[in-house]
C-alpha cells in the first residue's frame, strides 16, 4: 500500500506514521478481504494473552487452545464489521505489526510474539492513559475486540459465573 493512499484513509495512520517517523515504511494491511492477515493473528494472540491474563485457563495447553479460539473469533467478528470500520482496523493492525508502529503507537519494544504478557500490559496502559487521543482510541478498539470476541464463546462463561440463557 502506498503511503499517500494510507494518509487519505484516516487520521490514525497519518499521525502515527509521523510519530513513528515512518517515511519509508510500506504497510501490509492488517485485514485482507476482511480476514486477519498472518501478522494480525500474532498480534491478537499476544494481546489476548495480556488482556485476558488471569481469565485464560492457566494450564499451557488449554491456554493455547483458548487463545487460538479467540483469534478465530476475532477473524469472524472482523468480517461482520462495516467497511469503514474494517478500513480503520486494518490500518491500526497493519501499523501495530510494523516495528515503528508498534513502538510509536503502543510503546512496545519487543515483537508481539517475544513480549511477555506483563510487557504488553504495560504498553496497553501507556496507550490507555496517553495524552494522545489516537493512542487511547487504539487501546479501546483493541480492548473491545479482544473482550468482545473472547466472551462471545459459551466455553468462557463458566469463569464469569454466567450460566447461559434459560433454555426455552
Amino acid at each position, binding site marked *: 500500500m502506498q503511503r499517500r493512499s494510507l494518509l487519505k484513509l484516516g487520521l490514525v495512520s497519518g499521525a502515527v506514521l509521523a510519530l513513528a517517523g515512518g517515511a519509508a515504511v510500506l504497510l501490509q494491511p492488517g485485514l485482507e478481504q*476482511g480476514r486477519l492477515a498472518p501478522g494480525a493473528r500474532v498480534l491478537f494472540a499476544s494481546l489476548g494473552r*495480556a*488482556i*485476558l*491474563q*488471569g*481469565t485464560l485457563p492457566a494450564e499451557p495447553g488449554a491456554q493455547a487452545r483458548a487463545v487460538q479460539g479467540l483469534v478465530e*473469533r476475532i477473524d469472524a*467478528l472482523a*468480517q*461482520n*464489521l*462495516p*467497511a*469503514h*470500520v*474494517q478500513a480503520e482496523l486494518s490500518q491500526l493492525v497493519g501499523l501495530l505489526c510494523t516495528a515503528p508502529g508498534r513502538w510509536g503507537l503502543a510503546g512496545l519494544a519487543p515483537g508481539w510474539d517475544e513480549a511477555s*504478557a506483563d510487557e504488553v*500490559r504495560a504498553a*496497553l496502559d501507556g496507550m*490507555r*492513559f496517553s495524552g494522545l*487521543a489516537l493512542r*487511547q*482510541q487504539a487501546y*479501546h*478498539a483493541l*480492548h*473491545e475486540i479482544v*473482550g*468482545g470476541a*473472547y*466472551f*462471545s*464463546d459459551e466455553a*468462557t*462463561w463458566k*469463569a*464469569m*459465573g*454466567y450460566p447461559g*440463557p*434459560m433454555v*426455552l
Partner: protein
Amino acid sequence: MSNFPDPIREGLQRGWKVRGGAHGALPEKITCDVAIVGSGAGAGITAELLTRAGLSVVIVEEGPLKSSGDFRQHEAEAYPALYQESASRKTEDKAISILQGRCVGGSTTVNWTSSFRTPPPTLRHWQAHFGLQDFGVETLAPYFEQAERRLHVSPWQVAPNENNDLLRKGALQLGIPVGSIRRNVKGCWNLGSCGMGCPTNAKQSMLVTTIPAALDKGATLLVETRAEQFVLAGGKVQSLRCVAVDANGRARDAGRATTIVAQHFVLSGGAINSPAVLLRSKAPDPHQRLGTRTFLHPVVMSAAVMEQAVEGWAGAPQSIYTDHYLETQPIDGPMGFKLEAPPLHPVIMATSMPGHGPGQADMLAQFPRTHVLLALLRDGFHEQSPGGRVKLRGDGSAVLDYPLTDFVMEGGRRALLAMAELQFAAGAQQVLPVHEMGKPMDSWAQAKAAIEQLPMKPLLTKVVSAHVMGGCGLGGDEKLGVVRPDGVHWQVENLSVHDGSLFPTSVGANPQLSIYGIVNRLAQGLAQRLTGQSQVQPLA
C-alpha cells in the same frame, strides 16, 4: 428449533410481500402511494395507519428480517445481526459507544421495553423554545393512550430482579422517590434477553405488531435494502434510490439500484440515519439545521459488588427508575439525569468494564454479584449542550460528531457520585465508577473523594448511548427546525420525517413511547391529507 410460534414465518407463509436478501431479488422499480424508509418505531406506526387508510405502502429496511425463531439469546449472534455496526457504532472521536437497531423493527426489536410518555417539562420546553404550541400534555394524551393500548404498555406486576431492586432499596434508604417502569410486553417470561430479540414474542416491538399488520394489509417490505438518496426536483421528492446491501452494509449486485416512485415519502431511519439520507440527497437546508442538535442521553455507569447474588442477566432488564435527579433541578440548568439499571451479559460486561489482566479477571469473576446502575444524562436543554452533528464520510456512510464538553462531563461526575451513594446505601461492599482511572472503593466517603478527583474526560470516562434523538428536529418555523409541526419537511412538500430524529432536544426519558405517540398523531394527519378523509382509523 424454537418451541414458540414465529409470527413472521407464519406471515411469510400467508404470502406477505417481502423482497431482498433470501426473500427474492429486488425489483428495478416500484410505484406506490407512500414509501417509508426504515421499519422501526416511527415506520411501524406510520405503516399500520397508512395501510388501514387504504394506501399502498412500501417499507425499505437496511437490516435483515429476523424473528423469534432466530433469537437464541446469544450476544454473539444478536450484535452483528440486529444492531448498527455490530453494536459498536461510535461517535467520531470514538468516545461514545452507541447501541442502535438495524433490522426489521429497528431499535424496538432490541430495546429493553421501557415505556415513558414524553415528560411534561420536555413538552413545555418544546412549546416555549421551538414554536411547538400543539405539543402540550393534554393535546398529545389521546395519541399516547392509543399507542399504549396498541402496544400493550402496562405496569410490570412481577417483582423487580435484584439488579433493579437494589436501585429501589438504595433510593429508599436515601429518601429518594422511585417508580416502577411500564413495559410494552404481553405474556412476558421475565427472561432478560430483550436486547437480543425477544424469543417468545412477548415484547410488543414493531416486528410483531405494526409491521405484520401493514403486511397483512398488502404493504411491501424490502429488506437488506438501503435507501441511498432521494432524487429531488422542484421542491419535491421525485423518487427514492435504493441498493441491496449485505450484512456489513456493502452494496450487493454491483450496486444496481431499485427506484421507488411514490406520492409521499416518509423518512423513519432513526436519528443519525435519517439526517444522513437527507445529506446524501443534498436536501435543501437553508438554515443549516440538518443533522445538528443530535442528542444521545449520554450514559455513565457505576458497578457495585454485593454480598448477595445479583445475576443481572436474569429477569426483566429495567423495572425501577428514579427521576429525582431530573425533577430537583431546572431543566435548563446543570445537566440532570435519570437513573435506571441495565441488563448484564458477558460481552457487554467485558467490553464496558475498564481494565485488563488479573484485576479485570477478578472483577469479571464477580459477575454474579455485580450490580450496575446507569445514568441517562438529559442533554439538549442548555446552551452548553447543543448535542452533536451528523456528517457523511467519504463513502456516504453516516458518522455523528458529538463533542463531550466539560458541561456534559460535569453532569457525568454528579451522576457517578449519585450512583455510588445510592449503591452504598443499598449495601454495596465495593463500588467502581466505570472510568479508566476508577478504582473499587469500600465506602461512600472514599468513593466521594475519589470521584471528585477523577479527570472527567472523554476516552477515560466510559460513555455509552442507547437513545439516539434529533437531527431532523420539529420546529414551528423553518429557522427552528428541519420539519414542520405536522412532520412535513419545511422545504420538501412530499417528504415527512417520522422517527426519533424529530426531537428538538433529548426526551429526558427512554424514547420509544415518545416516538409511538407523536408519530401516531403525525401519521393520522398524513393519512387524512393523502386520502382526503377527515377521520382515519385510529391506532387502537
